[in-house]
Structures are given as C-alpha cells and as structure tokens.
C-alpha cells in the first residue's frame, strides 16, 4: 500500500521527507496504544483510511511527475531545442520559409523509359543510407479510371495538421517552423502509434539492426539527416530541410531524370525542379494540382499535378516498373533485412 500513502502524503507535505514520514507511520500504526473509546475513538484509523481514499484520488495527477522532473531541470525538454535542428530558413526580408514539393505526374514515367528502378527513390536511398526495405520516396503505381496506370512518387506528405505529431507520446516527432515534420530518433520510444496514425503509409520502423554501409556510421546524426538508422525507432522522409537551407535540392529531385519534381517555398512563392524556377502558385493553379486524401484535412505540403507520364512519352497502358535496389547491401555488416 506504500504508493497510495506516498502519493497522499506528498500532497499533504509536498517535500522529500514524506518517505521517512510514511515509514514511521506504517511501523507505528500497528503498535499504537489503543485510543480512548470516547467520541473521538479510532480517529487515527479513520484518518488513515481517509488518507487511503485520498491516495486513490491523488494518483490522478500522476503526470505531474513529469512536470516536476522538468522543473527540477533533470530534463530541460521545453527550452532546449531538439538535437540537431537548425535555425529555420528565412526569406531575405526575414519571413520563415514554408517548404513545399510539387510533383508533376505528367512527367513521371516511373523511370520506364530508362529501364531502371525509379531514380528519385534510388537517390534518396543513397543519400540517406535508408535501410532496406525503406522507400521514403516511394513510387506507387495506381489504376487510372479508364484502365491503365499512373506512377505516384510519394514522399512524406509533410502535413500541416499532422496526425503522427498529434499522437506521439514523447514529442519525438514534431513540426518545424518551416512546416516539415521530423523525427528525433534519440527520443523515440518505438511505440509505433504514429505509424498507425499516418494515413499515407509513410512511416518506417527499424525492426532490427538496420542494414547500412560502414560509411553511414561516420555521419553526424540529426533529425534532419537521419543517418545512421537507429534500431527500434521510426524513420521517414525528412524533406531535406538541411539541404534546402544551403541552396541544394533534395536527393529525390536531383535524381529525377524527367525533372518531374519541384521543391519550393510557398512563403516566397517559388519552386524549382533544378532546371527552371517557376511561381509555385501559378504552377499549382494552372494545372489543377491536388493533394492526396485531401478530405482527411491533414493539409499536406506535397502537391500533385495529375498525369500518367505523358510528357515523358509513357503509354498509360504499359504497367510495371523495375524493383527498388539497395546498392550497399553486400557492404552492410551483420545486417538483417525484412520485408516491408
């Protein structure tokens, strides 16, 4: 019964001596001299039971413990920024950038024309040492209304109302001021509720010791550059904000042979696929852009321009793409892989 008494007493006394006080109480009670059987008889017992009852109630504010730990400075979680997060990128006049991705499906042929696995996925895997079978930038093949298929490269949708961030119990996944959703793999407890919450199947778990090449172990880990993978934690596309800040395009965009993917800043209304710079709003509006599962209200930052690779000369009735490969598998020591 110690916990209840502790809890009750900590309420009453609110100091660190309650442990001692409680043990006194418990050891004293059974041998306490019988109290006079007048009106006030059994007051000690009665109060004791009342304290027990209070104990049941006082456990209710248990999470206050976490507040106390924070107050005590054991973990200064609120004030200290999550490890490795840089200052947000800003426009010249100081406004925080809002990163976005616009994927022109008219130009995406799933790399059928070059007969290779999708280059965006491959570039992402190589750049991030993403362990097999993780495809943070995955090219899905979906059926078209009249038959035939289209290819849909799908990174993390970077929701502005992110279900994954809402449900995370420890704040390991979070939204940044730039509007991207990141994961701190040094805080993640691996409960996987974010994977249950994500409606786009864009989260991946390190089920075992992830297969990564030796050079990945030298990388400087940050939530913006999730290398090397950590066992028992969740990973996903991080939108490469560290690269964008230095003026470099994300790996997937660099890898795309058809320049089908644009990366940009909604705040300044620009987007580029590496060859041309366009107005993001015009590109979206003039081409009937949409977002995936818009009706869920997750407000993704990834936009799609409808199409089926026609700009790359693809026939919609020519299905199939080459399977994704993880190029360093033979160099990944002691690695286990798993199916998706």
């Amino acid at each position, binding site marked *: 019964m110690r916990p209840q008494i502790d809890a009750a007493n900590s309420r009453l006394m609110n100091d660190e001596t309650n442990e001692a006080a409680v043990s006194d109480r418990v050891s004293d009670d059974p041998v306490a001299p019988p109290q006079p059987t007048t009106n006030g008889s059994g007051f000690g017992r009665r109060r004791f039971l009342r304290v027990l*009852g209070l104990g049941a109630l006082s456990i209710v504010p248990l999470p206050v413990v976490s507040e106390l730990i924070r107050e005590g400075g054991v973990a200064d979680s609120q004030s200290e920024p999550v490890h490795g997060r840089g200052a947000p990128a800003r426009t010249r006049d100081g406004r925080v950038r809002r990163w976005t991705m616009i994927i022109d499906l008219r130009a995406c042929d799933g790399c059928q024309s070059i007969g290779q696995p999708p280059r965006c996925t491959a570039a992402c895997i190589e750049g991030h040492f993403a362990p097999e079978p993780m495809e943070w930038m995955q090219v899905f093949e979906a059926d078209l209304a009249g038959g035939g298929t289209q290819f849909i490269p799908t990174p993390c949708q970077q929701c502005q109302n992110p279900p994954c961030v809402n449900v995370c119990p420890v704040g390991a996944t979070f939204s940044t001021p730039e509007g991207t959703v990141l994961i701190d793999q040094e805080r993640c407890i691996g409960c996987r509720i974010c994977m249950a919450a*994500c409606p786009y199947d864009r989260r991946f778990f390190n089920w075992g010791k992830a297969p990564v090449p030796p050079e990945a172990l030298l990388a400087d880990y940050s939530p913006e550059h999730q290398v090397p993978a950590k066992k028992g934690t969740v990973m996903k596309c991080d939108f490469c904000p560290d690269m964008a800040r230095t003026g470099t395009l994300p790996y997937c965009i660099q890898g795309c042979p058809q320049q089908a993917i644009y990366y940009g800043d909604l705040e300044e209304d620009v987007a580029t696929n590496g060859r041309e710079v366009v107005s993001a709003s015009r590109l979206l509006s003039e081409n009937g852009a949409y977002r995936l599962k818009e009706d869920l209200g997750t407000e993704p930052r990834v936009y799609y321009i409808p199409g089926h690779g026609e700009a790359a000369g693809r026939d919609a009735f020519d299905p199939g793409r080459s399977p994704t490969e993880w190029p360093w598998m033979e160099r990944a020591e002691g690695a286990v892989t798993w199916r998706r």
Partner: protein
Amino acid sequence: MAALNDWQNRLEETALGPVRRTGRRFWAVVAILLAIIGWGLYAYSVQLRDGLVVTGMRDRISWGLYIATFVFFIGISHAGTLISAILRVSNARWRTPVTRMAEFVTVVALICGASFVVIDLGRPDRVLNVFIYGRWQSPIIWDVLAITTYLTASVTYLFVPMIPDLALFRDRLAGRSSRWRGSLYRTLAIGWHGRPAQWRSLTSAIGVLMILIIPIAVSVHTVVSWIFAMTMRVPWDSALFGAFFVAGAIFSGIAILIIVMAILRRTYHLEEYVTEKHFVYLGYLMAAFAAIMIYANISELLVHGYKLQEGVEFHFRQLFLAEFAPLFWFYLLGGLCAPIVIALVPATRNVRGIVAAAILVTLAMWIERYFIVVTGLRVPLMPYEPASYAPTWVEWSLLAAGLAAFALLITLFTKLFPIIAVWEVAEDHEASAVQAGTGIPARAIPATADSPRLAEEAGR
C-alpha cells in the same frame, strides 16, 4: 447461536485452508508456470537482442499480438470492478463469496496487461521518456494515466475490504506460521481490532471507493479504445469504440472470473460458499453483456457496411469472407450467441455449462481484440498489396508467459491472502439467518454491532 458459531468456524477454516496447507500439487503448478515464464523471458531476451524483427510485425501491420493481448488483459481486469463495485452499489448480496477473487483478477490482469505495452516497445530502454517528455495530447499518455490510476484504485479497493480478514489471519496464524508471514499480516492489518469506530471508517471508505472505482474503470477501457479510434484507419474510425470496448471488457471479465472461480472452487473446496447459484447468476450477467455486444456489433457493422465507404468493402470482405472469416464467425456465433443460449437453456444452465460458455467467451474475446488490431491495420492506405501478419514463436511464447504470469500471480495471491471475504460472507449469512428467523430486514443489522464481536472473538 452454536450453529452459527460452527458455521463461522468452518468458514474461517476454509479461508485459512490454502494458507495452512500447501500440497505437492501446488508446487508442481508453480514449477510449470515458472517454466513457461522462464521460456517467455528467453524469448524476450532474443527480442531485446535482435529487435522486433523477431516478431511477425512489419511496417504495414505494425501492431499485432502484443497490443491485442494488452487490450485483452485490460479488458478482463474489469471483472473485479463489475462484480464488486457495481454489485456492491446495487446491494446484490450473492456477490460476497466471489468479490475477493474478482478483485484479485483485476489487479493481476492490470499488471500483466501493462507489461505487454512495454514488451511491444521498440526501445524499452527509453520507457522513462514517457514521464520525462510526456505530452498530454497523446492517447498513449492518456493510457498511462488511466491505467496507473486504475491500478492504484483497484489495489486500494482490493486492500481496504480485506483489512478485517487480514486481521483475522494475523490473529489465527499468530505463532503458527513463519515469521515473515506474521509480520506481513501484522503490517497489512494496520492495527485492526474491529472497534465500532474502525467498522464505521471501513464502511464509509468502502462506500467511497466503490463509487469512485466505477468511473475510473469505465474511463480506462474507453481510453484504451482511443489509441485506435484517434487514428484515421477505416475500421477504427468510430465514436462507438469506447463504449464497445467497455462492454467487451466487462463481458470478457465475467468470463475470466467464472473460469478462475471454477478452478479455485475445485482446488480449495469452496463448494459451500461458491455455489451453482453464483455460476448461474454470473452466466446471466454474461449473457446480458453478450446481448449488448451483439447490439454493438450490429450497430457498428451496419452503419459502416450500409454505406461501404472507401476501405470498408475490403475490411468486410476480409472479416466475413476471406482470411479472417472462420474465426470471425466463431466470434459472432460461438462467442456472442452461444453464451446466451447456454444461459437460457435449462439443460446447460449449470456449473459445467456456464464454465464452457466462459471459455468460449474468453477465446472469442481474445480473437476479437486480435482482429481489431490486425484487420484494422491491414486495410491498405495506398495502392499496395495488402500485407499479411502471422505471430512468430517469440510472440506466442510471450503470450504464453503472460497468461502463465497471470495464473501464477493469482495462485500466489491465494496462498497469501484470504480468497473469500470472510467478514462479508459472515455478515451476509447472519443477515439472511436473522431475516429468515425474525423477519427483520437485512439492512437493519448494523455492521458495527455483530461483526466486531466476531472479529474480537477471533482475536482472543
């Protein structure tokens, strides 16, 4: 009065029986259970070493047997609350011989259930992050809060009504049992001497606790359901989920209680106190909850099935026609319909029939929890082939170890604490005896007049 004293002595002997005599069979059971738990610990060590890759879970079906078992255990923990609190509130006196067992089940099931959440974690070494970085917005934190509250409350609720019985043990076993036992009972009896003032405090404490624990219990399983219902998965996206989980929890709790009762009754020869009446009454209660479950299932399935929105067709197909169909039909027919039939047909309305129904319900409710988790995650979110999931030997071993731990803890409890609420049964017996003899209503018997005398007698 002599007859009453005889009866009282026999009751006390029965209650003390398990503590006084420990046969070879007991140690055999403990050894087997420990062996199963040991095997489970080995399986867990494999999982700790290699990661969750040793389970059948993968990215698309990322929760499986562990979470299903967690939900199941939290569900059966509702046995104690229902039997003792709700029946106590409604003053159903037949409950007295079974309340203590029900409260054991609650505490033990909560401990076992909570450990499955930790087993499921990818990083159990960081479990303290939940307290350090906990966010109020997360359903997992609601769960931690609800389950710790419920555990505290149910331990209190187990302990407080047990105080007079612990004092009885303290006095009866003084000098006749090992030293640690003596000091255990002395400490736990917290100086109980059955004084009128003590009885008054006890009655009012129980009065407060039994009211308090009902909303706590209801909220716990509601919050457990919200782990699922707060996501956008098609089969989980339902406002009915909380109530549905609570009903299922009480339903499976009654079933487990019936099974535990049957085992303890046979092992410790409690036939005089735990009679067929108790099984039949609990069978009725179980049938009533089966009806509530049927209603909830129809409501849930019809509302979603009528419209057949995106993903629902796939879900219904896998439940009723494809992969999960045989066990799902077993759940509907064997788990929900059969218990009602068994409780209603006079030929099966006996201990054996009710226990069989309880076993059916237990199996069906575990399957139901498993299907809620697995089928919910299996509905594809993007254009990909539906994933499949089959638990591995590690998961089955840990399930077995969890059940063994449940059985072991209950076994050990029965060896330490009174499995029958002696003073409550005695009070009930006296009340009914007096009622039969003189026509004085049972309520008029003051607990402070008779029971303390008995306890004091025991003390001499």
